[in-house]
């Protein structure tokens, strides 16, 4: 970093005879860490406010010759000049105090380490060995409780083991803003408790399991599955959203048993969301596609790899083709798709957006997003954050945590433009501007920002015509930064890799001749072999296939129901090559299905919403599966136009040479804000935990998902004559769905539905997007 570090006051103190200089405000316990002196601790956590409850970190402190009369908790005392600290290493008093506290902690701690999931990686076990007496002198009766109780479907609480450090309750209150657990009772009977009618349904509850220094909080999914010495840990990156969390994947005998939040101060700090932590069974489900399948007489049959590759190549040979990448491909895989489309199939008809999208969005991405470097740290220094088309807690939880941190720390002002004032917005103390879906652009035009402000734009703003144009205009006017946050982990990487019709890798506009020459040279192909006009988007590719203009489709990991009313006719008539993990609506109709490796089974990288490259290694050592790019390289080879790489490393190296483009970016023409629809309009987005395909086989996780309800405000409820809990039916020409009503803080004449709950898949069941007019009636 060449940036000038901000000037901070430094304090020099002595710990165990060694001088150390640390910034003002540092706690003694962390100053000692700088010297490699480990003071034992339980309640202390660097990201939580100090509490001083466990008293394990007692040390002797003297300031300018005046000693504190009794040992002090080093996790609560900030350093001062002239301070002399004696830890357990040099002070007999501190040593005895720590031994005494450890003995107290073990008085009521059960001796059930053999059945405890924390055994082997337990701070209490470890510190009892380093800082405790060899034997306990306690001969009395321990307090007992009923063994584990579910405080949510995914978190178990064993109150006997709890040492009441309050890390979990402080995390929930301070970091997550979900104070659903708190201490109850008092004295030795004190315990972590939930309100009986309100379980611990926080999206961040898994972090409490990770920071629990004993085995009091354990995850249902990992219960009794393994011991730490069985596990092989691999640093990983979360594939569930664009937040870019660093993770640790723990594998035992080729089975992923758990995932933990990694420590990356620049991105997720030490936290992650429950989906990232607990949704990984999808890689191990029984119906994973194990071998290549080819369609013969209308039925898919197993085939060998050489046969399947040959059939695939044959099917693609000489046909006008379209490529749909899906939003979950790694950067390297996306790059392979992008190159495969241009260099092998000779088309620009490629799109990674297997979700509602618009031309306005495509132009916006090319002009304002690709190559941009807005970071989490820009939230840290922002004077104002505007959220539009984006509910951070549901759609990118770590962005939510980061904004909330700044709201708590320095009262960062947040504005939310949305049809519904969600609980997440309230936790951010956001100024709520209620707008009907589709009218976000009008609200944006009213705002005034500075060049320190950040506009956080969700991908679903593209459903409001003119919304992204308003964002671009606001940013131009004020100099505010634009942070575009897609939902899926692969989208930003796919954009940069050129897996979209109007861009080549590195954000090179397809219309720019110099860009085409640049790429063609890197690929060693004729520069005129890259088509000069922008390709079709996903929806247009399906439509063209239905019309018979596109005769072959390469589809990687796309669920057609994620898109706005897709036209399956194209799938029936065209040759379809599907690269998939599990059977889907695409594989049902595909001519060739090739199994691919899941994220844990390959290496690669994702790009977070910031455009930050997040590389990861293969976590599961033995797998029969291959990455998309390897399979594409085989097909390209068979087609006689090889990709020129067949490994992740090779793809990454080649993309590296193309990743930066210093030429002109695409220009952007504003789109007008559409006129609002009449009558009741639909608002809808995905929630963090829903019916997503990467969340299969996770009953514990699903237990904490939000209940699927139709949300309307009191005004609309009165008009319909419904009360809280009544059933309503929402319908369009396409279909209908029925849900119970929950009265919420919405704007008038809007009904909000979850987009992908089991009972409410609005795209599939209603076939309309945000802002569309829907019919709503009481009852079925």
């Amino acid at each position, binding site marked *: 970093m060449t940036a000038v570090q901000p000037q901070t006051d430094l304090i020099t103190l002595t710990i165990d005879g060694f001088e150390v200089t640390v910034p003002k405000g540092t706690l003694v316990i962390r100053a000692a860490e700088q010297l490699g002196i480990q003071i034992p601790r339980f309640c202390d956590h660097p990201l939580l406010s100090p509490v001083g409850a466990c008293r394990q970190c007692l040390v002797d402190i003297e300031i300018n010759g005046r000693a504190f009369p009794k040992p002090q908790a080093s996790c609560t005392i900030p350093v001062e000049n002239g301070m002399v600290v004696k830890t357990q290493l040099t002070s007999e008093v501190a040593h005895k105090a720590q031994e005494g506290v450890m003995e107290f902690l073990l008085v009521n701690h059960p001796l059930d380490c053999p*059945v405890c999931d924390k055994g082997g990686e337990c701070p209490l076990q470890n510190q009892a060995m380093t800082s405790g007496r060899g034997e306990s002198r306690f001969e009395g009766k321990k307090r007992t409780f009923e063994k584990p109780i579910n405080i949510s479907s995914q978190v178990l609480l064993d109150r006997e083991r709890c040492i009441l450090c309050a890390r979990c309750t402080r995390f929930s209150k301070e970091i997550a803003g979900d104070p659903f657990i708190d201490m109850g009772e008092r004295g030795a009977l004190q315990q972590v408790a939930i309100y009986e009618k309100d379980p611990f349904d926080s999206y961040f509850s898994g972090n409490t399991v990770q920071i629990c220094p004993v085995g009091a909080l354990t995850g249902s999914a990992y219960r*009794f*599955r393994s011991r730490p010495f069985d596990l092989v840990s691999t640093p990983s990156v979360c594939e569930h959203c664009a937040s870019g969390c660093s993770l640790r994947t723990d594998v035992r005998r080729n089975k992923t048993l758990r995932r933990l939040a990694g420590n990356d101060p620049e991105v997720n700090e030490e936290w992650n969301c429950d989906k990232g932590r607990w949704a990984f069974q999808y890689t191990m489900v029984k119906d994973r596609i194990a071998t290549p399948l080819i369609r013969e007489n209308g039925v898919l049959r197993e085939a060998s790899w050489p046969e399947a590759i040959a059939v695939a190549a044959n099917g693609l040979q000489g046909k006008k083709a379209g490529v749909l990448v899906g939003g979950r491909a790694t950067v390297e895989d996306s790059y392979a798709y992008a190159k495969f489309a241009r260099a092998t199939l000779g088309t620009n008809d490629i799109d990674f957006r297997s979700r509602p999208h618009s031309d306005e969005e495509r132009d916006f991405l090319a002009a304002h997003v690709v190559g941009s470097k807005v970071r989490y740290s820009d939230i840290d220094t922002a004077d104002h954050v505007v959220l539009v088309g984006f509910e951070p807690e549901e759609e990118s939880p770590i962005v939510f945590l980061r904004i909330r941190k700044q709201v708590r720390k320095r009262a960062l002002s947040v504005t939310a433009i949305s049809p519904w004032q969600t609980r997440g917005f309230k936790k951010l103390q956001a100024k709520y501007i209620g707008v009907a879906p589709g009218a976000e652009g009008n609200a944006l035009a009213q705002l005034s920002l500075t060049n320190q402000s950040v506009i956080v734009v969700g991908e679903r703003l593209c459903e409001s015509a003119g919304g992204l144009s308003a964002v671009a205009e606001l940013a131009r006017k004020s100099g505010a930064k634009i942070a575009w946050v897609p939902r899926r982990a692969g989208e930003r990487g796919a954009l940069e890799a050129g897996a979209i019709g109007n861009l080549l890798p590195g954000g090179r506009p397809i219309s720019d001749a110099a860009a085409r020459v640049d790429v063609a040279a890197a690929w060693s192909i004729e520069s005129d072999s890259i088509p000069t006009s922008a390709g079709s988007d996903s929806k247009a590719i399906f439509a063209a296939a239905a019309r018979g203009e596109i005769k072959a489709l390469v589809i990687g990991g796309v669920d057609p129901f994620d898109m706005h009313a897709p036209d399956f006719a194209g799938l029936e008539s065209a040759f379809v090559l599907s690269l998939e993990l599990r059977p889907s609506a695409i594989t049902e109709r595909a001519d060739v299905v090739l199994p691919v490796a899941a994220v844990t089974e390959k290496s690669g990288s994702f790009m977070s919403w910031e455009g930050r490259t997040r590389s990861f290694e293969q976590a599961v050592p033995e797998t029969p599966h291959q990455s998309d790019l390897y399979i594409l390289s085989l097909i390209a080879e068979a087609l006689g136009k090889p990709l020129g790489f067949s490994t992740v490393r090779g793809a990454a190296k080649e993309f590296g040479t193309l990743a930066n483009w210093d030429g002109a970016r695409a220009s952007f023409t504003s789109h007008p804000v559409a006129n609002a629809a009449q009558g009741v309009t639909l608002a809808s987005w995905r929630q963090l935990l829903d019916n997503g395909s990467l969340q299969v086989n996770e009953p514990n996780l699903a237990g904490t998902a939000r209940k699927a309800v139709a949300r309307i405000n009191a005004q609309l409820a009165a008009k319909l004559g419904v009360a809280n809990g009544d059933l309503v039916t929402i319908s369009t020409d396409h279909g209908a769905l029925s849900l119970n009503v929950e009265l919420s803080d919405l704007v008038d004449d809007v009904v909000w539905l979850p987009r992908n709950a089991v009972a409410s898949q609005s795209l599939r069941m209603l076939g309309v997007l945000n802002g569309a007019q829907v019919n709503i009636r009481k009852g079925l």
Partner: protein
Amino acid sequence: MSELEPKRAIDGAAEESIHIPIAGPASLFTQLKGFWVTFAAQFKKVTTVQYPEVKEPTAPRFHGRHQLNRHPDGLEKCIGCELCAWACPADAIYVEGADNSDEQRYSPGERYGKVYQINYLRCIFCGLCIEACPTRALTMTNEYELADDSRKKLIFEKEDLLAPLRSGMLQPPHPYYPGTDDQDYYHGRVTEAHPSQEQK
């Protein structure tokens, strides 16, 4: 090397001690001495064991095949804690724990060993696993006949290692002895199965 030739010493120190007698009265005596040993042996107690027709008992603490013990009512003592696997210097033990429930109870308490394997191709019979076991579930028998014709057969599964059901025991899973809990099992207060424990 001919038998008549003096054996060439490999190193100097042994040279003079090697001397092969050729003939003479002294050699006859030596030969008789040899025959005497053979002759006298006829009247000694025979130590040869006619294995496998005859099987001698081992020393009482001989380290033989492992056994997973049961509580007196048939519940398993193993809690699936993996401490044996942790202690094993040869990495011969593989354990997976699982959750007991009131409907499917294999052992007292929360946890039981769902998968339990000992690989006798690896095991060195050191007994460290026995010392590590917190519930005395794992002990060693005196059984030493551990040879087979495939590697797979020498990986013993839980069914192979579990102690047989003796009289008064019931095959788990089954519920606790009526009116007891895990503490009663650990303190030895359950002495036999009760008819009501039969799994419905």
